[in-house]
């Protein structure tokens, strides 16, 4: 390319003031902030739960309390291991191009979906261990297990209510993430199609506008092309 033409082209590109779609950028920044807050929260939980149960076991020595402390540390270690593995490479986009932002959002979405499965498994394990421990060590009078589990006391009621709320929230969060992931994958597809042939630019631009609200928000826009859904 002639150098002056090249310089003019660069000049035009430089002054174009390109923007990453602001909603995409804001979403990634918000997620990054939430990840940092989550890291702090995880640390606090580790210190409070792990430290608390350990101190409790040291202050009142006994096999049952030692078991609680060991189990707590086991669950915490599992949670940390999972978090460290799934969050690796998810803290910042790998490059300056918009595609990297989309790619990062997709990987974060997938990690969040995997975390829902892990969270459900961990929660069930913790509840099972907790109930088992309480049933074995702190009941005044022996009761049949099933009857004890069936709303026999306020503590059991609270456990079931919390379980119900946790799984309700988990299902809602999973649905939201699935919608977001579908939307992001569609955008990535549109982006790849657009860069391949240079056409359909206005359509792709409109696709960014609805993100990250998902399909429903985009569907409600009048005059939308059905193939974007």
């Amino acid at each position: 390319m002639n150098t002056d033409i090249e310089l003019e082209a660069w000049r035009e590109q430089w002054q174009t003031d390109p923007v990453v779609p602001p909603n995409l950028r804001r979403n990634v920044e918000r997620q990054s902030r939430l990840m940092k807050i989550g890291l702090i929260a995880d640390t606090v939980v580790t210190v409070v739960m792990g430290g608390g149960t350990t101190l409790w076991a040291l202050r009142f020595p006994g096999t049952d309390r030692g078991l609680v402390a060991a189990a707590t540390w086991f669950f915490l270690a599992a949670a940390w291991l999972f978090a460290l593995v799934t969050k690796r490479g998810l803290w910042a986009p790998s490059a300056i191009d918009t595609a990297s932002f989309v790619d990062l959002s997709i990987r974060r979405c997938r990690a969040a979906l995997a975390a829902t499965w892990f969270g459900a498994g961990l929660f069930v394990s913790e509840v099972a261990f907790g109930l088992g421990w309480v049933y074995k060590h702190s009941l005044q009078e022996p009761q049949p297990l099933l009857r004890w589990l069936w709303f026999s006391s306020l503590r059991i009621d609270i456990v079931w209510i919390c379980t119900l709320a946790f799984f309700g929230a988990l299902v809602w969060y999973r649905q939201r993430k699935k919608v977001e992931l579908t939307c992001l994958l569609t955008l990535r597809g549109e982006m790849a199609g657009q860069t391949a042939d240079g056409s359909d630019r206005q359509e792709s631009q409109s696709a960014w506008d609805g993100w990250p609200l998902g399909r429903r928000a985009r569907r409600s826009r009048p005059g939308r092309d059905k193939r974007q859904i």
Partner: protein
Amino acid sequence: MVEIGPSIGTILDRASLDRAAVEQHFERILAANGPALSRLAASYTNTISDRDDLLQEIAVAIWQALPRFRGECSERTFAFRIAHNRGINYVTRTRTQVSGPIEEIEVHDPAPGPESDLARRQRADKLRKAVYRLPVAYRQVITLTLEDMGYKEISEVLGISESNVGVRLNRARQLLHDLMENQK
């Protein structure tokens, strides 16, 4: 009664008038050069928050220097000279180089619309990334050239001779060309 000098009221009036004039001047400079200064700040930084911090520093430095501006050069030259000095300070302070991941930099878009489509964004992202990878001395010359400045104005901003500008610009263009080619 004989007036020996201006009264305190007059001095205060003049001071407030001066301040208002400086404020107007400051706003005019930022309005005229805001997007270009934002692009310049982006060329020295690799994250949005750092870019915003640097832009803030530049604005403060312009505000502080404005009362001493006597019009020896254009407002644009004045603003860019300060901005580049701040940029160099920033690089020296943070030692920001292309070691970490480069975050997407959003810069002010004065005319969003059909023109600001994805393909243009990607090309401009690529250029921005390549410019950021240039050594500072070349980056300064090329960013000013891309802002439509001539040799004379660039030499005034950077405090180097016009021939030096030419030499640096040629080298910067060559390096930038290579970087853009390597990104393909």
